[in-house]
């Protein structure tokens, strides 16, 4: 029963990512979208929090990264970058989706 969790909030403005990471199960995937992608900026407080979560795949939506000027070596290690098609595939690959609004 693997789950896809979507987080669309900046981790610096809202507690959604923190709460999500407190409720994921092993084998789940967390997909960062919209302002949620700010969590992957290397060297940021949130990127450090992401790195501490084990057994969970972290992905981020490419269009939202690009819109915000976050690319290449500005993205912290261990984050898989996916396009909208990859988002659809993640929805299919997991049994259900929970949006952390």
């Amino acid at each position, binding site marked *: 029963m693997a789950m896809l969790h979507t987080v*669309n909030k900046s981790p610096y403005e809202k507690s959604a990512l923190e709460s999500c990471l407190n409720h994921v199960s092993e084998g789940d995937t967390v997909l960062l979208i919209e302002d949620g992608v700010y969590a992957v900026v290397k060297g940021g407080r949130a990127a450090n929090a992401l790195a501490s979560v084990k057994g969970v795949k972290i992905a981020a939506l490419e269009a*939202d990264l690009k819109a915000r000027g976050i690319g290449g070596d500005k993205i912290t290690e261990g984050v898989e970058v996916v*396009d*909208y*098609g990859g988002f659809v595939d993640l929805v299919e690959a997991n049994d259900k989706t929970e*949006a952390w609004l």
Partner: protein
Amino acid sequence: MKLGIVVNEGPYTHEASDTAYNFAVAALEKGHEIYRIFFYHDGVNNATRLTVPPQDDRNIQQKWTELQEKHDLDLVVCIAAAQRRGILDENEMKRQGKDAYNIAPGFRISGLGQLIEAGIQCDRLVTFGD
């Protein structure tokens, strides 16, 4: 897979409706079925045909309407949320004694049961909101 999509925020104000639109397009391109797109909370504001976005910006309502036409999608606007926010179709206009309506082509107004039914019928329900 059979997909249900929920859109909870208005266009422009929040990115959620752009994300939902782009996700829907990608799902259709991959051959998935979109059973229904349900507009709730401020999401009902996607369905007003009175928007006049700046010339150099996207027209989100029009993008939804065109996607609906192209793929015969079921775009459902929640009636309770729509009433609270002033989104009416012609029928609701008459029923409520109003003198104008503003729903855009391709959207239909219906009840919250349509959301629950999408949850029951679809393989996956994906929510976009704030």
